[in-house]
Structure formats: C-alpha cells, structure tokens
C-alpha cells in the first residue's frame, strides 16, 4: 500500500512546545486550494489505475486538519467520487487531529470518506500543549474531553499518540493509567520527543531514557496485554519478536522510499512530513509529477542502498535488523549528516528489548542470529557454578505447574544446603506464595525493581531438556547451578498437621484410595467416564474412594468428593493418609512422592522417565501422534493448555480401566493398611 501523508494545511490552533510545524515560516498558500485538492484525487486515480492491485492510504495530517472545516472534507469526498469512480474502493483515509475543533458537523463528511477512527494526541502534563501564546492547556483539555464524548456519540473510535518528554520520565505508570483510563478504542502509541538543535533542551530525552520509560510500563502491559491490546510499540514488537510479523511502521520498515509520499498545501512533494520540515528529498510538485514518478525519484535510490550499506557497516550482525533496518533515515541524516547511517533511536529499541522485553517475555522466542537460547543461557549459572549473589538479589520468576513447584522447592533446599548465606528473592505470584513461604532459600517475596536479575524456572525451555532421558528435576538443578545428577529430593518448607475437621469428615474405610484426575493441561486428563468406571470397581472391592482437586474440576460419581475443600498444603498433608493414590501426571503425583505413598500414575502425552518416581506404578498410554516426545513434551509446551486434536482417539482415553484397577490392587497387596495406625481419628 502506498501512503500519502497529506497536509492540506500547516496552520494549527495549538502551540505544542515540541512541535516544529507552528514555528516554521508559513508557506503560501497556507491551505490547499480546492483546485489542487481536486488534482490530488486525479493523481490518486492515475496511480491506482497504473497499479491495479495496490491500495492508497491518505493520512490527513497538518497542522490541524479540522481547521479546514467540514465543507472541505465534503468537497474532498465529492472530488473522490468524481475523479476516482473506479478506484475509490482502494482508497483508505485516516486522520490525525488534536480534536479540539471537532463538532458533530464533521461526522458526516468524515464518514463519507470512510473514516471511522481518528488518531489524536494528548498530554496530561500542564502547559506543554494548548492554544494561544500562553499554552492554555486547561481550555484545550476541556475541549478535547468534550470531543471524545462527541466522537463516541457519533460512533467514531479514536486513538492517542503520547509524546514522551523529560517531564514524563518521572511518572510512566501514572501517564499509562491516565491514557488507558480514557479507554481509547484505537491505538495508544508512545513516541519519543524528537527535537533537533538546542530548542526545548529541557524536554529532550535520550534513547536510553525512552527505553527506561517504556521499560517501566512494559511488565504491567505484558501481564495484562489482553486488557490493553493496542499499546505501541509493545504490540508491534511482540508481534515482530514473538510472532514473526513484519508489519513495521515507516521508521523501521526500511521501505519508506518505496511507498511514502508527503504532500503539502502548496502542492510540494517529498518523502515524509519530517523530510519536508527539514527540506530533504524534495520531489517537486503535484502539478508536474505523478505519484509513480515521485516514488521512482532517483533520490530515493540512496535510501534503498542504505539497507545494503548498513548491513555491512553499523548494523552488521545486529540481531534486530529485521525489525529495525537502522531506523528512520531522516533522523540519521539530521543527526549524522547522511542517510547512510543508522538512527540514534536504534539504541532505544535495542536497550528496551534487551533490558526489559527479553527478561519479561520468554526470551526463547526472540529472533536471533546467534544460536537459539543464548539469551536464556547467558542469565543462568553454569552447571556446578553457584549463583552469584554479590551483585545484588537474584529473583526467581516462578512459572510452571504446582508439581513443578514441588520440584523447585527440593532443588532450592539443596542449593541452600550448599550455600546457606545465598538466598533468593521470589517474584510474588498468588499461586506460588503458599509453597515458598518459610523456605530457607527464600529471603523475600515481592516485586522486582527494573533491571533485577532473574532465574526463570521454565526448565522446558532449557536446551538440555531436549536430551533423551533428561529428567525435569535434573534440568532445574542445572538452572540453579547444582552439579548433576542431583539426588531428587522433594522438600516441603511447612509442617503438615492433619486437619481435624477434614479427617473427621471423610468416611474412611479399612483401605482407601485417593483419585486425583485433574490437570491444568486438558491433554493429560482421562475422560470422566473412565474415572467413574474405576471408582465403581474400587468401591466393589470395599475400598473407600475419595476424590480431591480443585472446585472447578468435574466430580467423579461414586467417590467422596473433596473438590475445592483443601488448600494445596492441606492436600499434600491429606495425601499421606491414603493407601494408594491414582493420578495423572500432576501435582498429586509429585506430592505422593513426598510421602513415598504408593501411586498408580496414568501417563499420556508426557513421559514417566522424565517426571515419574521409581516407587510408583506407571501406566503409559499408546500415543497415536507422531511426536516421539509426546505432544506437550520438550518443545511442545505451547500446546499445554490446548485440548488434544485427536478427539476420541486421544491417548489418555486408550487406558483399559481393568488394567488400572489391577495396578491398584497390586499396590494394595504390597501395602499395609493405615487403618490400624490411628492416624485418621
């Protein structure tokens, strides 16, 4: 798509302190005459006929385009209808306005041009934006808010560009909340203030400061990105770095020469608004040149050559080339005197990604020209190398299931036994707190400051986890710098007294079996009907059959249900009172190992050689899928929360209930009843 940045006026009713437009000597005419406007649509038509598969975006910009008045937009729509009868379906209009002049009179003509979403900008900090020489931001703000109400009444969406200045740096979250509280349906974009020369030196920021500003917001955005989906540059960086998208803004695309044109009120043409502001890449006027001719302007060859030059010089080997391309060439020219340099704002991107993005997001997904996993590995101690606490606290960012957490507790105990003075900080997360509180290796639980050092517990992303036969516990041991093979000892940093109310409530029989069918992964669950068949067989044997798990799990009929009635700590304690536990690869499987209680474990997509314990009876289902590791084994964690696509052929439903029943009976035959131990009274 070709884009025309269309500036039919450079007049503005605001006096934003950092804006160049209002300080320039006005061109003549200040507003594009209607004859030129009509010519503009003729040129668009001409271009779209020459390129019959292309579209053209017209970005109404300024100055303040609403100063043109509603009639101007009405005339534009008329010209479009008249001059582009066959091509108007391929013209997309958008507009950037400060909105303070918006009235209901604009609604119909803007809609006629197909505009449903208006880009705007706002500044909560006083006296940076406003009308008149005194920058009356109070009046400006009132008009802006009134305009938002009108926009919503008229069915327009709107977005906001926020310009980050020195004054913003002290309050990034406050500004973020302010702007998101306005509930823009369009994009909220944070741009750095770009000031060349000595003007407004008190507002200037460095790329590092801009990166820190973004970095203060990013972890919050990342956690809640479904809530704030359209915040830039976070959304596009996430799409580029994690999803492989290559939809880049003009600054980063390396392609602006092929698709961007700037058109001013006097008909003059150039590359973009900033190039025009600084008199760069002048391409003549609309009166003598078609858009195809402008895009073929030989001056633009230099910009295309820039891509090749930078890859061999300043950007050589940069792993972010594909998403940056050296940044804005106009920036480079203004600060370095030539287009054949990278922009100084490259630094902010690199700094932001490396300092904030990667530690927050799973680094494994970041594209890199280095071998994969480098970013992860560089943060971790090497095998056998103790964690270095001398440079400040090391934070554990716990992720994974509750069973994984029991393994981490064991690994940490061993780490602490080797080095009692070294204690970790734990990132506060509701799910994990009850496990770690009281652990001798944990000094504090809280929220890490920017720049904190992390160890992440995502062992499934560790390169060694792909080695055949590598056990999860051993990978965790490596992550925490223990020599491997390490003894696999789970550890509970809390006492487990029996809960009298719970113990009295359960209708104990001589021998009792605990069923734990739940799992966070639907792929690891066996069908409820099979569990009910098993419960029926066990009940016929005269066994007490109890089900435990979360309140949201499905109840297995025929069992005594404790669903939702136990905390995780109570569940661990309770489990030791059963003669046999029947479970899938879940928290209960690990918890049974804590007490060495006999367990029958049903394995489907995961592997007992990786997670299981030797005293347990493991039943492995036949996997119908091709992945030898199992669909959610190493390299398959992305599917963990998704249900199995095999439907009724899913591996977990291939179990023969009679075989499971036999396994329970065998374990019971080897186990003394606990009923005589009087633990349950």
């Amino acid at each position: 798509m070709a884009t025309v940045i269309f500036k039919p006026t450079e007049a503005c009713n605001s006096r934003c302190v950092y804006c160049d437009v209002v300080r320039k000597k006005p061109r003549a005419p200040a507003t594009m005459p209607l004859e030129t406007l009509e010519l503009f649509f003729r040129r668009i038509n001409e271009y779209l006929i020459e390129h019959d598969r292309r579209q053209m975006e017209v970005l109404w910009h300024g100055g303040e385009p609403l100063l043109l008045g509603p009639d101007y937009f009405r005339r534009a729509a008329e010209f479009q209808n008249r001059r582009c009868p066959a091509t108007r379906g391929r013209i997309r209009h958008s507009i950037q306005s400060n909105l303070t002049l918006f009235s209901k009179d604009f609604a119909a003509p803007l809609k006629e041009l197909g505009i449903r979403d208006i880009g705007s900008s706002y500044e909560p900090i006083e006296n940076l934006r406003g009308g008149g020489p005194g920058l009356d931001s109070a009046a400006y703000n009132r008009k802006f808010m009134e305009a938002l109400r009108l926009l919503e009444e008229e069915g327009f969406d709107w977005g906001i560009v926020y310009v980050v200045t020195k004054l913003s740096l002290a309050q990034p979250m406050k500004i973020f909340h302010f702007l998101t509280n306005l509930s823009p349906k369009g994009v909220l974009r944070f741009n750095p203030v770009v000031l060349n020369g000595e003007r407004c030196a008190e507002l200037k920021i460095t790329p590092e400061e801009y990166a820190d500003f973004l970095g203060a917001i990013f972890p919050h955005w990342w956690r809640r990105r479904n809530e704030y989906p359209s915040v830039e540059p976070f959304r596009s960086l996430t799409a580029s770095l994690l999803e492989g998208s290559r939809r880049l803004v003009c600054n980063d695309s390396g392609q602006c020469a092929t698709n961007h044109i700037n058109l001013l009120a006097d008909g003059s043409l150039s590359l973009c608004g900033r190039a025009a502001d600084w008199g760069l890449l002048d391409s003549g006027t609309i009166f003598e040149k078609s858009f195809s001719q402008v895009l073929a302007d030989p001056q633009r060859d230099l910009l295309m050559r820039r891509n090749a030059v930078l890859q061999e010089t300043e950007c050589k080997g940069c792993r972010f080339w594909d998403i940056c391309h050296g940044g804005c060439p106009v920036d480079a020219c203004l600060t370095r005197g030539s287009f054949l340099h990278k922009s100084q704002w490259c630094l902010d991107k690199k700094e932001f990604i490396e300092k904030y993005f990667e530690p927050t997001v799973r680094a494994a997904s970041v594209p890199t020209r280095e071998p994969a996993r480098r970013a992860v590995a560089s943060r971790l101690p090497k095998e056998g190398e103790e964690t270095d606490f001398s440079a400040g606290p090391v934070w554990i960012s716990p992720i994974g299931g509750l069973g994984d957490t029991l393994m981490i507790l064991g690994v940490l105990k061993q780490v602490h036994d080797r080095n009692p003075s070294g204690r970790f900080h734990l990132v506060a997360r509701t799910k994990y707190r009850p496990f770690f509180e009281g652990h001798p290796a944990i000094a504090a639980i809280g929220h890490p400051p920017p720049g904190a050092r992390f160890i992440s517990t995502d062992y499934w992303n560790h390169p060694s986890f792909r080695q055949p036969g590598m056990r999860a516990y051993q990978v965790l041991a490596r992550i925490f710098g223990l020599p491997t093979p390490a003894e696999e000892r789970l550890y509970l940093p809390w006492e487990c007294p029996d809960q009298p109310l719970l113990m009295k409530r359960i209708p104990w029989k001589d021998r009792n079996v605990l069923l734990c069918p739940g799992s966070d992964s639907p792929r690891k669950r066996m069908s409820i009907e099979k569990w009910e068949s098993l419960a029926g067989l066990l009940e016929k044997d005269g066994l007490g059959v109890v089900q435990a798990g979360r309140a949201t799990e499905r109840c297995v009929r025929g069992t005594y249900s404790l669903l939702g009635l136990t905390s995780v700590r109570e569940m661990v304690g309770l489990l030791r009172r059963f003669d046999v536990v029947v479970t899938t690869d879940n928290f209960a499987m690990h918890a049974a190992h804590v007490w060495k209680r006999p367990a029958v474990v049903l394995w489907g997509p995961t592997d007992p050689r990786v997670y299981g314990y030797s005293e347990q009876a493991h039943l492995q289902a036949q996997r119908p899928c091709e992945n030898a590791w199992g669909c959610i084994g190493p390299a398959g964690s992305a599917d963990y929360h998704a249900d199995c696509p095999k439907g009724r052929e899913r591996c977990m439903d291939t179990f023969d209930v009679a075989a499971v029943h036999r396994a329970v009976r065998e374990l019971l035959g080897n186990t003394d009843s606990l009923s005589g131990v009087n633990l349950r009274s």
Partner: protein
Amino acid sequence: MNLPIFVCPFDPTLLRRFTGAAVVVRVDRPARVADAVAAAEDSGNALFCVILDSACPLDQIEFGDDLKDTPLAVRAPSLGKFRNLVRHLDRLKRLDLRVHLPCDRAGNITGLRILSSVGLRGCAVIGNGKTDWEALADLMTYAVLEPVPHASIEPFATIAARYDPQACLDWGGVQFEDPSRFLHMDRQGRIALSRRELEESKFIAQDLSELSGQAQHPAVRERLDAGRRMFAENHPCASCAGWKVCLGKFAATAAEDRGCEALFAEMIAAALQRQAAKSCDPEPKPWPP
C-alpha cells in the same frame, strides 16, 4: 426521554401521581413491604424492588413469609447477633433478598462474608465514613475468587461479571446510585440525582413533568460526564489504576487515603482472573447445591 427507575418513599398518593414507570419503593419497616407492593401495582407502575431502610440490625427484623416473591433490598446498620439470625436463616433464604451493610462499621465486612457463606446475598455500602480498604479487599477476594459456593456480594459480583477492559463500568446501580438508571424522588415528587442529594434537598427537577421531552436531563448528562472532567482537570483519580471500575466515586477522600486505588486495582485483577478461569472451566456449583 426513557424514564429511569424512580426510587421513592412509600406514599400511595405520590405513586398515583404518575404511571407506567418502574419504581423502587422505600419503606422503614417490614410490615409495610406488602402495602408498598400493592400500592405500586395499584398506581400502574412496575415495581423494581422494595428497599427496607431498617434502623435495627438484621437479626431483629421480622420478615413474614408473604414477602417471598418480592425483590427486597434491606439496608440495615449491622448483621446483629448471628445466634439470633441463625434462627431465621431458613426464612431469609426463601426471600428474594439482598442485605446492604455500611462498611464504615467494624464487623460489617465480616458480617457480609458470613451472610454470603450461609447463602444470603449482600452488598457492601462503601464510602460513607472511614473505610478499612484492606478488609474490603479481602472481602472482594472472597466474593470473586473463593471457589467454595457462596452467595454473591455486591458491588464485587457485578464488577467481576461485567468488567470489560475496553470500557469503564459504573456499578452504582447496585446501590441505586446511577443517575442514568435511578433517580430519587421525595414525597413532594421532587427529583434528585442521588439519595444524598435528596437528603440535602439538591433537586434537579421539581416535578416529573420537567424530565419529559428531553433525551437526557442536562444534570444527568453533566453527572455522567463528571468523569471526563476529572481527566481535563488532571485529578489524581484520572491516573488511578482502578479508575475503570471506580470512576472517581471516592474522589473526595482519595487525596488523603489511596486505599481505594489498591482495592479497585486488585478488583480488576480479580475480575480478569475470574473471567479467565470461567473461560477455561465449567461454572462452579450454584448455591444452594
């Protein structure tokens, strides 16, 4: 205009002055509830619910079995003694009842939790006086995330169910304090935007006739726009993490006490957590099981 719901005192003469509206009728003792229902029906208005403004604690209110089909909001100063209340529990559970307790009183936050745990719906009346925001946050967590079946507690249940990250949510309606839905009327038929303004005689109209013919009364629109004014004035509430589910309701005290920010920011997190859980798992068992 679309008529809002009128919250008016029990006065058959007042109710007969208009017809075809939805009304909430306020009474001061349970014996009058049935009369209020009858008066609303006789006047040709639709009864939305009856508010019982009780001076005595919940345990001392005598409810008759004849109230079981009447939507009833009880505003009581406290729960009273649980040992007394427990004797009436079966009867209370048969009613279509929600108990509103002011959260400036020690014990009422616990009281709401107790009511919820025994299956009685409650509503925390927040902001009238000193508020223990941390205790409220605990109550909110219980209301929204506790998996053990319990009755709903407002406004948390409404926020958790209706929170949309892309929009702001005004939950004032659960306490009849949302001028786009509820207007308050006195015995003379004068209309105010809120109960407090009614008590302070700050009326927006002297009569119902002053409301007709307008898409939205200017005072109502101005009140609904009050939030945007806080942005224009750069009020601290505008940059609060909990704004979207608070809308500056506690702006008067927010300067000295930012406890409301912690509560509503946590409320948003809890709402998202619950919505995420509901999208993955089946509904928890309803109450009573």
